[in-house]
């Protein structure tokens, strides 16, 4: 399985904060396609600008391979302070 975490407005769009995708996705691109099939609004937001991705708690850019059991977090534009 692949563990998926959402933050900020992405969580509101999907209606969940955390889910497990089974069987595990082999790449980030494949995971995004599967999420978009199940949650079209989330899929559109993930394809949009400004969403950062952390794979196993390290920031990832572009498409990356995912190992089984990977944790993938999608983070919309950040704003603290």
């Amino acid at each position, binding site marked *: 399985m692949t563990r998926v975490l959402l933050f900020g407005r992405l969580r509101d769009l999907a209606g969940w904060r955390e889910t497990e995708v089974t069987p595990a996705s082999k790449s980030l691109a494949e995971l995004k396609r599967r999420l978009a099939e199940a949650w079209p609004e989330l899929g559109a937001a993930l394809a949009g600008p400004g969403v950062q991705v952390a794979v196993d708690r390290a920031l990832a850019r572009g498409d990356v391979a995912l190992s089984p059991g990977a944790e993938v977090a999608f983070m919309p534009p950040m*704003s603290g302070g």
Partner: protein
Amino acid sequence: MITLTDQAFDPGAALTAFSTGRTESGAVASFLGIARGEAGAATALELEAWPEFTTRQIEAFAADATRRFQLHDVAIIHRTGKIAPGEAIVLVMIAAAHRREAFEACDFLMDYLKSRAPLWKKEHGPAGARWVEPTTRDLTDAARWER
């Protein structure tokens, strides 16, 4: 040290604790961010973090600031959860040998926290809730430090 807390904190007590016992730091600069009421349009701010990840990212950035500005110490307290107007959201405290480095590092860290730290901010009000994203000003402020 980076502290995320879902409890209201006392900025004065934190600043006193941070400043006490320093015999070589000639300068302590601080910035306190407070939740605005927007004349009734905002009843609360809600700050979301991914606690472990957020803390680690801010720590790494603070370490970078420490090298860049030759700081003696950095402490940041950041609220999470629901924050009422008038409550402290963030307190950045910097100790350095001299004031210029302390002021600049404070500004540098706030620019980072406003637009690049893994925190998400929702404003609640009578008209509903909305996610707040960095403004153009926040982004151009943060870009000032790139070189």
